[in-house]
């Protein structure tokens, strides 16, 4: 039997949808008994949410005031302590999971795979390399396999009818003080989350100014969509970094992705290729974004935006 441990991601109040998607990846491991672990300041309510997810055996909660803001340096030794009992330890390939998991894996000498796209067996996995331009199939020979999961490639596990048991775990390792949280900024709570939104509207360098980029927000508001951006738009200062989609930035998988004024560098395409439908609007008929777009429109964005806004009203 395989024993799979899923590391929950949350904001202190709610489990992130990335948790249920990571769980779904874990469920693809054959003959698996799956546990979810919640590291939190006061995690009992979060653990209760996790306990309702389908296909799990138990939930482990580690309550520690040091988890009020998650720090890899603090969580990793605690996770490593638990991990030795498991064959697989998965976390979402978000900045939370990508920061934490290698640190924990190294502490117990485990192998890690990053950005798992598909599970072929308990030891064979598929993952993208070269910014999504190649897909490698790897076989891992290790007692414990750590993996970050490309959440855009998995649907969220459903809720179950009955909750499983929650047990509290008290780590033996003492907390470290060499890493201290100072602050976080940029959370825009009033807008759909880029990584779980059904619709995403994104803009690129062609907007030419932060002022012009506001039209993307207006369009997104009309559609109830999340806002994304290319690296060029972020580097030009039109929008903050957390809106960046691509190899650096977020990987997304909305039902509908509308790219306006984005040329489609391979680094950007790496982050959108899981989208169900890609619409590209660009003035340059040869822009690489049209190679992966399901629907392409060659047009000047400043001509098209007012029309789109009218149509979406």
């Amino acid at each position, binding site marked *: 039997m395989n024993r799979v441990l899923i590391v929950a991601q949350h904001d202190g109040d709610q489990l992130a949808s990335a948790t249920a998607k990571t769980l779904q990846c874990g469920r693809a491991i054959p003959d698996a008994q799956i546990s979810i672990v919640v590291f939190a300041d006061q995690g009992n309510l979060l653990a209760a949410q996790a306990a309702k997810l389908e296909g799990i055996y138990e939930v482990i909660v580690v309550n520690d005031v040091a988890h009020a803001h998650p720090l890899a340096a603090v969580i*990793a030794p605690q996770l490593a302590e638990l991990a030795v009992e498991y064959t697989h330890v998965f976390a979402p390939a978000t900045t939370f999971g990508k*920061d934490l998991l290698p640190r924990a894996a190294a502490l117990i000498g485990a192998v*890690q795979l*990053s*950005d798992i796209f598909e599970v072929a067996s308990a030891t064979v996995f598929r993952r993208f390399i070269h910014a999504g331009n190649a897909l490698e199939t790897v076989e891992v020979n290790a007692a414990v396999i750590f993996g970050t999961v490309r959440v855009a490639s998995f649907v969220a596990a459903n809720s179950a009818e009955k909750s499983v048991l929650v047990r509290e775990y008290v780590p033996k390792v003492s907390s470290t003080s060499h*890493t201290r949280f100072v602050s976080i900024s940029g959370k825009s709570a009033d807008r759909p989350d880029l990584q779980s939104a059904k619709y995403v509207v994104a803009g690129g360098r062609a907007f030419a100014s932060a002022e012009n980029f506001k039209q993307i927000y207006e369009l997104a508001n009309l559609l109830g969509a999340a806002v994304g951006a290319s690296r060029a738009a972020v580097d030009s200062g039109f929008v903050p970094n*957390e809106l960046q989609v691509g190899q650096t930035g*977020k990987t997304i998988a909305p039902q509908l992705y509308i790219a306006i004024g984005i040329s489609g560098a391979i680094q950007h395409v790496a982050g959108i290729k899981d989208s169900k439908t890609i619409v590209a609007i660009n003035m340059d008929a040869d822009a690489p974004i049209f190679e992966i777009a*399901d629907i392409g429109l060659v047009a000047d964005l400043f001509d098209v935006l007012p029309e789109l806004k009218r149509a979406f009203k």
Partner: protein
Amino acid sequence: MTMKILVAVTRVLDYSAPVRVHADGRGVVTEGVSRAMNPFDEIAIEEALRIKERGSADEVVVATIGPSACQQQLRAALAMGADSAIHVESDATLEPLLVARILLKLVEREQPAIVMLGKQAVDRDHGQTGQMLAALWGRPQATYASEIVLSEATARVTREVDEGLEILDVDLPAVITTDLRLNEPRFIKLPAILKAKKKPLTALTLNELGIEYESRIKVLRVDAPPARPPGIRVDNVQELINVLKDRALLR
């Protein structure tokens, strides 16, 4: 005490060249493709040099692990301004934990206050080495750095995270991994290239470092990514809206 920064770099396929995959699944086409320094590592070197130029560090040592051709990237780093270089020779593809173990040996030799490296290599896209080194070293990590402010014994690092910008204080020594917006690396000038030839470059083997090598990740095959079905072109917004409605993507 001298304050030293160790920068770890890796050689990758030139990321501006299109990536192609061999039809038989044996791997990515490397023949005829030029190599370059991993762009995130270039940012790490630049940042280390800026810290030194501000007077907050005395020495920048750059290191890489790989075949002898990797010395090209070390020479480029020396031409940018690094003081010395270490080349750990290996022809094998090394998994991140092994790279971290090798870097730990270099850390023990060099005693740096900061180890800086790119947040990921753009070929294998693992993004693990910095965090693994920090774990093995028992020191703090600050990944995805977009700003670094040093004071006596700590670094205040702004990190690009999914939620926005996070600021951490880490005690030194520490591992910092660099993100795109930290800086823009300088161009190398010709006189610097000539000068770099005279800078010290030490070659070491895995044997000399006491590293035994056993790969636990076996690549079975490499394929082109699944192709999307060919798309259509529309001529105007109205047509676009009609198609979206037909496909039930809009009401």
